[in-house]
């Protein structure tokens, strides 16, 4: 599952560039890990491997970054708690920035552009 001949950052970014969102799980303590690391931050084990998350999560915190319309206008930055446990920074793409609320259920999607993949989220179900 995990190639020990390169670092996990490069492996993770390569998967993202192919449109695949991976997190990690520790074989020793069982906890999920994000961002990817060589060593489990929960128990110190190096028996970490990549795992495919469900992609489902909940908005934990939210901000609207104000930007001039000429520069692209306001945009959302959120912290999202994955159902597996880890939290990550991302954005919710299918709502207006001021409509993204804490508690909103979201689903992950990888946007690939210029050979790089970025994990974003779409709101699912009703409003939070």
């Amino acid at each position, binding site marked *: 599952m995990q190639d020990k001949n390169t670092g996990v950052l490069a492996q993770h970014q390569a998967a993202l560039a192919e449109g695949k969102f991976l997190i990690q799980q520790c074989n020793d303590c069982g906890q999920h890990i994000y961002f990817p690391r060589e060593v489990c931050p929960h128990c110190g084990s190096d028996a970490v491997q990549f795992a495919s998350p469900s992609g489902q999560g909940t908005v934990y915190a939210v901000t609207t970054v*104000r930007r001039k319309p000429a520069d692209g206008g306001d945009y959302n930055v959120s912290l999202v708690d994955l159902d597996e446990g880890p939290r990550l920074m991302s954005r919710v793409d299918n709502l207006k920035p001021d409509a993204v609320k804490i508690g909103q259920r979201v689903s992950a999607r990888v946007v690939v552009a210029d050979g790089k993949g970025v994990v974003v989220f779409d709101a699912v179900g009703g409003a939070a």
Partner: protein
Amino acid sequence: MSDGLKALRGSAAIAGVATFGCGEAHGFSEMELLARSAHAAVADAGLKMSDIDGLCTASVGSTMWPMPVIEYLGIRPSFIDGTMVGGSSFIAHLLPAMHALQSGQCNAVLVCYGSTQRTAAFGRREIAQARRWMDPQPYENPYEPFNPPSAYALAASRHMHLYGTTRRDLAEVAVAARQWAQRNPEAFMRDPLSIDDVLNARMVSDPLSVRDCCLVTDGGGAYVLVRADRAKHLAKKPVYVLGNGTACWNRQISSMPDITVTAATESGRQAYAMAGMSAKDMDVVELYDAFTINTLLFLEDLGFCAKGEAGAFVQNGGIAPGGHLPVNTNGGGLSCVHPGMYGIFTLIEAVRQLRGEGGERQVSGAQVALAHGNGGTLSSQSTAIFGTADTL
């Protein structure tokens, strides 16, 4: 808390403090602001630069900063601490310096800082770009948080969601800081500021407006730490270090276990244990207010009120002049000075208050003061407790 740390309580004292170039310092370099501050702090202690044999310093831009500082000042320190944990560094420098003084490794430690963040030709935009390479955060950078404000805005959003804290509560913090600043001739912004002014100010990263954000100024600050027995015979009334603790749990806001609970809970616990004191013993409190939410989080995490109750604590001028707790009596990073890293200025104001040098903003009868530094994006926390001779 080890007996060894408790034995360090009161073992060292701040003998000299100084600031220079706070606000706008056109035509000065960072090193020049640092050097003027350092020279003035050493003179304030009644010492000469040749007496300095310990150095602590940190810089946002230079990764090897102690070396050019040593070269510039012409000192030969036997103790060097270049620990850089962001704006809390200059509070975190205290305890290692106390160890070094107590062991005899050195006899007089200079802690110093200078920044031309406001007027420098090489601007904030260029530094922010450079930091993407020097301090990579590949799992936050793609989302373009406008940091540091966005990280603190995220924390504020969560605090508001969980505890019903409002933008008006945040505005109370900014208004209180401004009212203190109006009593401090050194403060950069002293115009009247109302709650509505804060609420109606330009939004930066919701729920924070520009008036929820600290200033961007120039400024230098320095202090001199010596063993307590020596401090008694120097120029100024000694201000003793009763406790210090530092804690860091994460770098990125996305890696913080709970963004409404900072590592100040731990740095504060350590500092209080060393001092044998608690929040109720503090006469004056200086908290690193990079953003208005900081003050709320630190009031809670340092035990001045329960988690979630800081909004109520600051309402109706609770921390303003005449309120129930004097907080950020110099005007803080919000209204006094914030040159990149503000931490050293919390300590300098605490010392000035305990010396009775606060002028119009002096807290009457202040014997014990708390200074708290924050670094990164709610990442590192360092808490110090200071007292007059009566508290030993």
